[in-house]
């Protein structure tokens, strides 16, 4: 089922949370809403789910107007940032909830519910934990229960609010690969909200980058990374260093020994080196403008240069981007 958002506006008093936001998510697509906190991405997700109403604009689900329809009729699976599991119910009952509250003519028989919840417990690899209460689970387990609970009603659209926000780095990476695989098996339209660019770029088919209640750019991860629409997107998608009014990625800053033939080179002093990791990060101070510049170079290059703090070198940008102000 497709999701279409047209000209959505939402104000909280004088604060404009969403200003004329439009986007379309196709069936089967995994879509990320990426932006800093306060950019309106969670509000947009809640409006799609029907948990909040927009002040203007329309929401279309499967090409039918759903703007005014109540949340419970939208067949949307929503996974909350802090999971919002029912604390007084077991894992089993949490997952079964959506089936148990169906109208009596649609409600599956008890045996069907039991089988279905059992299958979902298998899917989230918590087969043995159906009798536990949410408080007895780890963060990653709770997250998976929240997902299983949302999936139990076979939603046409899956919405996830900062799905990995509260987990530690290792569990996060594991879960996001798992989510990607799960999404591909389910054939739903999924939208997830995140402030983590790595998460969005790694997992999503397409990304919308939001800022101050507006969508700055929409596209595939490669499109937005390689062709950022403006300075905000460029800065948000990776570290940048400013070089003579242009924006440069640290890995595009070239370092060479003094007296190199590079035409645009300027003199700089090495101030700090972080040599732990796949690349070596070097902080420099330009001697002409006294501006700080950050560079990332390969380990081989680092060894070849034999850099030390205090060394005086030449630096030059490989690509600089100029964005109209």
């Amino acid at each position, binding site marked *: 089922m497709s999701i279409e958002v047209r000209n959505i506006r939402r104000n909280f008093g004088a604060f404009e949370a969403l200003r004329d936001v439009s986007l379309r998510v196709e069936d089967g697509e995994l879509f990320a809403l990426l932006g800093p906190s306060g950019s309106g991405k969670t509000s947009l997700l809640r409006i799609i789910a029907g948990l909040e109403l927009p002040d203007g604009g329309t929401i279309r689900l499967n090409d039918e107007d759903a703007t005014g329809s109540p949340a*419970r009729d939208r067949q949307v699976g929503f996974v*909350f940032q802090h999971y*919002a599991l029912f604390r007084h119910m077991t894992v089993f009952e949490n997952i079964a*909830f959506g089936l148990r*509250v169906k109208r009596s003519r649609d409600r599956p028989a008890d045996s069907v519910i039991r089988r279905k919840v059992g299958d979902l417990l298998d899917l989230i690899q918590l087969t043995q934990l159906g009798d536990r209460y949410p408080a007895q689970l780890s963060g990653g387990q709770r997250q998976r229960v929240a997902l299983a609970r949302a999936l139990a*009603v076979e939603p046409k659209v899956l919405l996830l609010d900062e799905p990995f926000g509260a987990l530690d780095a290792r569990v996060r990476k594991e879960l996001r690969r798992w989510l990607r695989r799960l999404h591909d098996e389910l054939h739903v339209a999924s939208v997830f909200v995140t402030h983590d660019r790595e998460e969005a770029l790694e997992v999503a088919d397409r990304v919308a980058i939001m800022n101050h209640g507006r969508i700055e750019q929409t596209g595939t991860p490669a499109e937005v990374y390689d062709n950022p629409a403006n300075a905000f997107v460029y800065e948000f998608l990776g570290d940048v260093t400013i070089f003579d009014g242009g924006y440069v990625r640290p890995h595009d800053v070239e370092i060479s020994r003094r007296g190199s033939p590079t035409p645009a080179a300027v003199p700089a002093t090495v101030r700090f080196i972080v040599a732990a990791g796949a690349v070596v990060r070097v902080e420099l101070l330009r001697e002409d403008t006294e501006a700080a510049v950050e560079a990332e170079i390969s380990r081989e290059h680092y060894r070849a240069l034999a850099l030390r703090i205090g060394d005086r070198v030449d630096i030059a940008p490989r690509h600089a981007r100029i964005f109209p102000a």
Partner: protein
Amino acid sequence: MNARRRIADSEPRLLRWSIISLAIALTILFIVLPLAAVFIQAFNKGWSFWLAAISETNARSAIELSLLVTAIAVPLNVVFGLAAAWTIARFRFKGRDILLTLIDIPFGVSPVVSGLIFVLVFGAQGWLGPWLADRDIQIVFAVPGIVLATVFVTFPFVARELIPLMQAQGSSEEEAAIALGATGWQMFRRVTLPNIKWGLLYGVVLCTARALGEFGAVSVVSGHIRGLTNTIPLHVEILYNEYNYTAAFAVASLLSVVAVITLGLKKLLEWKTREVGS
């Protein structure tokens, strides 16, 4: 090092023990002794006298009226309290702070003043007096007035208990229920109510105790008509004023038992809410 620590500790320890002893002494003097006195007085003419005192016609009608008033006031305040707590904990609106303050008014105003307000509004000389008299409806100096006064005085107990609890729990579980297809009623019964049940019971216990024991407001609107508009506390006062001490204490002992039970339930529920609330 060790010796120095002992010295550093010794003064606060002395202070600590004297404060604890003082607290215990005051508790015994002001709470345990009076409570014991109630029971000693109540039974000083024996079981049969006690039984006669609480089963005499006027005593029985006072007990019945108190139970009736409580049976009306408590459910009403459960409904009002839930509605008020829900509104305040779940919505942001203009006048929210005013509503919060209004809920507290019965705690801030002297019960006697609360009673007088009802006389002023519903009494024969009150604003609605003539209108009510035309329709032969009597509120003040009758059971409806006593119910109204009791409802007013006990209004904050349930709401006050639920507001912080519901605020702390937040609304995300309720939103999850709605997103999963639950109706408003299903959400309330399956998610909201189980989460607040211990807090709600706690409020009900306090509300019941106060409804049974309320004196001031009820005294003003009751008119003290024996066998008709006397509640337990008013009956105790009448017996006492008639120098019928043992009977007064016998009836009072009923209220004291309620107080002790309340205290026990209160402790149990406090423990339960803390266990579940986190």
